[in-house]
């Protein structure tokens, strides 16, 4: 599903002393099946943007086209509900949304709201819980008895089981231990590749953005200031500095090495690629 923003402006608390312009005249498109990253300093409008993507917030001015659904200032509940079916959202600390008696029931909550019947919802729930490595013996236990990492996985399964075409991830790894961090990010990558869904990652972790996303959009003060290929924008340290963003570690390292005369054929995106390129360089220069 393709999502387009047309002259989108978003204002909070309109006509009160607390009025705040969060997004200012944004025009952009999220193409189908692409892995996007949205980056920007705190307060740049990232969360407003993603909440507008799935109808949680309606634009104050302008339009959102999600597939054939049009969202505007005064859209109907029915349209908003339809968008939510196609655009899934994993909030920051999604484990805070768990509420059911059992893990299985909690995961089935979303699919059932989207109109799937009991048996289909259960099938989906079991499938995605399994995909996230939640053991079948835990299906009937209370979600509140699980560990933090497991709770997070159950909550994520609850979104995936709705089978959205677009998946929005808001700081999905905040507070996770390094191992779960890698596992979770690898899982999203796999889902993106195998199921061809659009993934939109919002995070402060520039290393993740650099390693996993294909395209990035940079927000600053409510404006969309840059969009383009991740490999072009995130390797440009000067550009990132202008918007108070930290370059990814591996970019910094590669640039430092360049200054010392160690120049690779390409810019690596993760540790494995870096090691490989370094081995190559060594073999050629030693």
């Amino acid at each position, binding site marked *: 599903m393709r999502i387009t923003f047309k002259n989108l402006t978003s204002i909070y608390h309109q006509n*009160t002393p607390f009025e705040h312009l969060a997004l200012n005249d944004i025009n952009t498109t999220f193409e189908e099946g692409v892995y996007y990253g949205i980056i920007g300093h705190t307060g740049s409008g990232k969360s407003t943007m993603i909440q507008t993507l799935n109808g949680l917030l309606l634009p104050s001015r302008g339009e959102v086209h999600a597939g054939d659904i049009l969202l505007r200032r005064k859209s109907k509940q029915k349209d908003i*509900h339809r968008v*939510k079916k196609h655009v899934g959202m994993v*909030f920051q600390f999604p484990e*805070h*949304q*768990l509420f059911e008696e059992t893990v299985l029931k909690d995961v089935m*909550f979303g699919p059932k*709201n989207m109109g799937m019947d009991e048996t289909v919802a259960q099938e989906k729930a079991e499938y995605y819980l399994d995909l996230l490595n939640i053991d079948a013996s835990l299906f009937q236990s209370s979600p509140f008895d699980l560990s933090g990492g497991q709770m997070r996985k159950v909550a994520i399964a609850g*979104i995936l089981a709705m089978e959205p075409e677009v998946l929005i991830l808001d700081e999905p790894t905040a507070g996770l231990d390094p191992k779960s961090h890698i596992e979770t990010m690898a899982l999203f990558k796999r889902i993106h590749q195998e199921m061809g869904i659009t993934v939109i990652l919002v995070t402060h972790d520039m290393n993740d953005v650099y390693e996993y996303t294909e395209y990035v959009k940079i927000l600053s003060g409510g404006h969309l200031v840059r969009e383009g290929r991740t490999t072009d924008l995130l390797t440009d340290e000067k550009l990132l500095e202008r918007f108070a963003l930290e370059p990814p570690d591996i970019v910094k390292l590669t640039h430092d090495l360049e200054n010392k005369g160690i120049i690779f054929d390409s810019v690596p995106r993760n540790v494995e690629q870096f090691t490989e390129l370094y081995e190559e360089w060594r073999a050629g220069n030693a």
Partner: protein
Amino acid sequence: MLSKMLLGRYIPGSSIIHQLDPRAKILAVVLFMAIVFFANHWTGYILLIVFITVLTKTADLSIRFLFNGLKLILILLLFTFFMHLFFTKGGTVLVDGGFFTIESEGVVRGVYITIRLAMLVLITTILTLTTSPLQLTDAIERIAKPLKVFKVPVHEIALMMSISLRFIPTLMDETEKIIKAQSARGSTFMTGNLMSRLQALTPIFIPLFISSFKRAEEMAIAMEVRGYQGEEGRTHYRVLNWQWKDTFALILMIIFGIILWMIRQ
């Protein structure tokens, strides 16, 4: 939705009203609550309205904004008005609808009582809009101090108040977040009959309760770790400072009361 709540909200500012000692403000509001009942004639009510308008302007608040806040209790105001309209008898009969009559006394009483209520709500709104919750609880603690003689745990009550006030915005934020998270999962609160709307509240309240209990426990531990033992041996970081302008404000309020009393009929 939640952002429209004006009650208990504080707007920082530097007006003279903002700068008054919170104790003076609370005492003035209490005085005003009594003064409101002095008015028994239209001149009195007009004076009340003028007084509140001047007060609003002095506090640098916009009148329109304040009236938007009144919308919350609009139903209560309308209810009061219509109760008087239909059930207070006396004076000339204005409308005779057979099974009901509207009489002039009812109209007059209805308008007066509604103005009274609105004034009471407006002045307390001005109080909370210009006084931070922390200042308010500090002031209440100081004003209630004499009650200690009767073994009233004033400090503990004030602490409970400030903790609750402190967590209102946090809980609001949290509620909003959970509502969003659940509605992203397709939960609908705006549609369906009463029963299904009530059921839609479970996914909001359970997570909210759980996080509140967790937060309360964490907070209790954090306080204990930092050696909190109640009031014993504590000094105040914020010291309230009563100045001549606070006395002056109270005197003004009393003079206003006397004027209203004098024009009674």
